[in-house]
């Protein structure tokens, strides 16, 4: 209980309550996360249960339209799947990939950044040059390339099986340089401070100094970066899936749903595309706005 009350009295929480956009974004994000994580229990139907699918239900419009039924609030797709349930299961995949890819990028970036900042010299120069070069290319291009290589290296059956991990790694690899740069910057600053010298003198290993003394000093900026990166990673995943090279069709994410819906735009079944799109935008926008708020709230110069 002590930790909770301390959080409720903290500056951060005070600033949160005073920022309406942050509160609103947090509510939207919370609803989406709960809906996604507990989809198997909360969703009205199971879109993967082939037995419950009935082609007679296909292309039902949303309930508010003349031919809609209350059984499917926002309609059904070409195979009679309930769009709302598909969105909840899809958001699960999108969130899973987004969070895992961000964690991957974060860990890789922190390790590289600490190594570069602490070792300095040639190691630093080479690692940061790689990061610079990668930063000049758009993330999506790097992710596409990693995905394409994985497709060429792995046999088709194996690739289909682990496609979701391939996407996580591809997006993670495309996002690490920003983390590495931030960590390296503060590692360089902290390295020459007296407490680090003192720790070195009493014989603490460099790896331990980095992880227990330098890393805590960058947690704030890293948290902001990770939040903003989560939004980017979700968009990257959706884009890859939309292009047809992302998660496998057996586990459709929001991007896959939008791609499927795109085929039916012309016959007038707009809800199959539009509602997953709205869910995706709500998710990304709320995460981005939370990230923006966190950046301002943790920046002492703006207080």
């Amino acid at each position: 209980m002590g930790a909770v009350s301390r959080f409720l009295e903290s500056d951060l929480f005070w600033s949160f309550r005073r920022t309406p956009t942050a509160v609103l974004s947090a509510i939207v994000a919370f609803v989406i996360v709960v809906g996604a994580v507990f989809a198997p229990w909360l969703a009205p139907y199971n879109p993967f249960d082939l037995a419950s699918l009935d082609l007679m239900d296909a292309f039902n419009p949303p309930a508010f339209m003349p031919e809609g039924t209350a059984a499917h609030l926002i309609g059904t797709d070409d195979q009679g799947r309930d769009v709302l349930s598909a969105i909840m299961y899809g958001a699960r995949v999108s969130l899973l990939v987004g969070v895992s890819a961000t964690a991957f990028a974060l860990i890789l970036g922190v390790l590289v950044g600490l190594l570069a900042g602490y070792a300095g010299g040639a190691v630093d120069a080479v690692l940061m040059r790689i990061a610079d070069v990668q930063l000049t290319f758009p993330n999506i291009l790097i992710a596409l390339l990693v995905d394409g290589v994985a497709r060429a290296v792995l046999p088709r059956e194996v690739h289909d099986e682990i496609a979701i991990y391939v996407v996580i790694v591809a997006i993670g690899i495309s996002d690490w340089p920003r983390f590495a740069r931030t960590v390296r910057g503060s590692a360089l600053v902290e390295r020459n401070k007296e407490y680090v010298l003192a720790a070195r003198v009493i014989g603490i290993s460099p790896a331990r100094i980095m992880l227990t003394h330098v890393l805590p000093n960058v947690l704030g900026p890293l948290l902001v970066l990770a939040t903003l990166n989560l939004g980017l990673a979700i968009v990257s995943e959706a884009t890859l899936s939309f292009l047809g090279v992302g998660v496998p069709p057996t586990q459709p994410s929001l991007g896959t749903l939008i791609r499927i819906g795109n085929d039916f735009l012309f016959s007038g079944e707009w809800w199959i595309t539009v509602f997953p799109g709205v869910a995706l935008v709500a998710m990304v926008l709320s995460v981005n706005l939370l990230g923006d708020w966190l950046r301002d709230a943790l920046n002492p110069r703006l207080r």
Partner: protein
Amino acid sequence: MPAFILSRILQAIPVMLAVALIAFALFAFVGDPIATMLGQEFTPAQRDALVAALGLDQPVPVQFLRFVGRALHGEFGLSYRLSRPVSDLILERAPATLELALCASVLALAIGMPMGVYTGLYPRSPLSRFFLTFSLVGVSLPTFLIGSLLILVFAVWLGWLPSFGRGDTVQLGWWSTGFLTASGWKALVLPSITLGLFQLTLIMRLVRSEMMEVLRSDYVKFARARGIRDRAINFGHALRNTLVPVITIVGLQLGSIIAFSIVTETVFQWPGMGLLFIQSVSSADIPVMAAYLLLISAVFVTINLVVDLLYYAVDPRLRAGRGH
């Protein structure tokens, strides 16, 4: 001056070589081109002939040098998927992508600049608030979703504009252009908006913040004190000073526009290089992927080089500041 240019070019070479090495590694170690190209039935003689024809019997460093040499001549071998020379495929598709990228950039500049100037001059007006909200939405909407929504509204519901392809094109030598027919122009509208929207919001925000910065400066206050007309100050003094960063960003973003055309081209089935690349990624067509990678890297490296050199031309401090 020559030393600066030389060092910049020398820095660009290892980057290109590294990219070439990645592209070559794709060729040399990924997949089995022989099996892909020969299909199910072949004789050992056919196999050996193809191995020799592709140079796969040479040592790896020799293969790499030959790869770089051939890449410099624009030869990337045959596409596994289409069995046609990769260079032909790319030359065929390049005009579509370049025309789209050009239209998107012009659109982003022509609309983003005035919006940025307006929001910079009148930050509190309702229209400015609307523009800023709009730009936030523009940044948050993924490119493919913008494309889908535009198709839904303007092609399906209103039926004003085509939703896929380039319309009728005219051949000028090897260059196929959509600029000379009405249907070509109509086909360009939706893809250009989709591709340019992100750049538009970027330019708008940049011009806005630069304008607000410059308008606070002493020389603008002094110009006002001298009684110079607002229009002359806003456009003659303020806007002119915002142009350098805007040109830099627009230049640097040109590379991203070409890269992001992958998404736009997929949505609109636009027959450009991006669509070619995405088709090669999903069918693991390594030669096309490698060639596209090298081409895009060359574009990026060249743009960065040109921007650096432009800085050098614009900023005298870089010329004098060699002594620190």
